[in-house]
């Protein structure tokens, strides 16, 4: 059964990310390709972080979803390059994150890449301003570089005092 790839993309947009279920896999930008190789559907997936424990679950969820939609001949391929960055998050995905209480990345990786001398930047003590996803205050501080998952860091709002996760720019 050869289904139009548009329909496959639609199905994949209904698969939630296992760690941040408010995002779909297409919001996250990890699906790199959907093609038919003869009678076999080939879905190309890129990992977010090399050690992200969700990667295996993502593959499993894709397979489960597509099989439940009647796809029998299926192959998943991993593609490393170009490397996934938070720039691949869709605008819709960013809004969903904010609504869920996670601050989306405030920079693009191109902004951070131009800071070629990392030590100088570090010594300047300038972290980007991350607005609070609850009250939108810009008066926030970083608590820790890593939060509840490898893709997030921990912040605290100095105005509403709520702690929150920041989807780090990576």
């Amino acid at each position: 059964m050869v289904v139009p790839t548009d329909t496959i993309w639609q199905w994949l947009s209904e698969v939630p990310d296992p760690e941040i279920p408010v995002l779909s896999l297409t919001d996250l930008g990890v699906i790199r390709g959907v093609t038919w190789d003869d009678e076999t559907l080939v879905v190309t997936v890129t990992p977010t972080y090399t050690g992200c424990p969700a990667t295996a679950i993502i593959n499993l969820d894709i397979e489960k979803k597509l099989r439940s939609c009647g796809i029998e001949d299926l192959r998943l391929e991993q593609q490393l390059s170009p490397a996934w960055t938070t720039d691949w998050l869709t605008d819709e995905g960013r809004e969903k994150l904010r609504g869920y209480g996670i601050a989306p990345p405030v920079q693009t990786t191109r902004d951070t890449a131009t800071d070629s001398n990392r030590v100088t930047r570090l010594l300047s003590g300038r972290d980007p301003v991350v607005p609070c996803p609850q009250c939108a205050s810009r008066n926030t501080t970083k608590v820790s570089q890593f939060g509840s998952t490898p893709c997030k860091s921990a912040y605290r709002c100095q105005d509403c005092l709520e702690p929150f996760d920041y989807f780090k720019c990576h």
Partner: protein
Amino acid sequence: MSAAKKLVADEVLFDWLLRRGDTVLVVGHRVSEWCGHSPVLEEDIALANIALDLIGQARLWLSYAGEVEGKGRGENELAYLRDAWDFRNLLIAEQPNGDFGKTLMRQLFIDAHQVSLLSALASSKDPRIAEIAVKSLKEANYHFDRSADLVIRLGDGTPESHKRMQDALDDLWSFTGEMFIGDAVDKVMASAGYAPLPEKLKAAWQDMVHTVMDEATLIIPDSGFAHTGGTTGRHSEHLGHILADMQFLQRAYPGVTW
């Protein structure tokens, strides 16, 4: 790829890939030993996440190594079914965690090495090496930021934290030289444009490390002595103990899956 097109013999490439994969695997395992033992919850989470990144990078290198070797060994067989003398990691990766400060100092040295090495590997003529490097470099940069920040805070902190960081620096310094001593494998990799000579990475590494140590008010030892042997399989006594823990499950229950 036809045999005539190969710029680097499989055995050489395999050995070099093991050096990359084993270093991040072993230090990743070391860092994971902190899980549940860190001084504060945020650091516990951070260390566990860094360990995950490092082990993730090890999977990419070791998978490639297994394909190059062509004997049917994958990432799991290479990680869990080799003995200490077959490991090619830098000696610094296997050094014990010590206190929190010593773990951070070890991580700073390794992160700075990763940043300088992976930056160079991003333009490797071997496309697979280049894509693994680009993927891993983003993580290494982020790790370096954290290590540098904490080394500065603790070095330039209380008398107690300063003393511990200086002790850690003195203890570990002689394990840093090995990062910049190349051998025949490195020469072949460099002449093919696959990887930089280790000696070429030293300036960038020193730039990063010296700036951090100055800011942290820590004094780098004068000694240029370097412990070597890790990249050719001669290890300190610590590696066997790591493997006993890390490989237990696959040794006791061969082929087990869940």
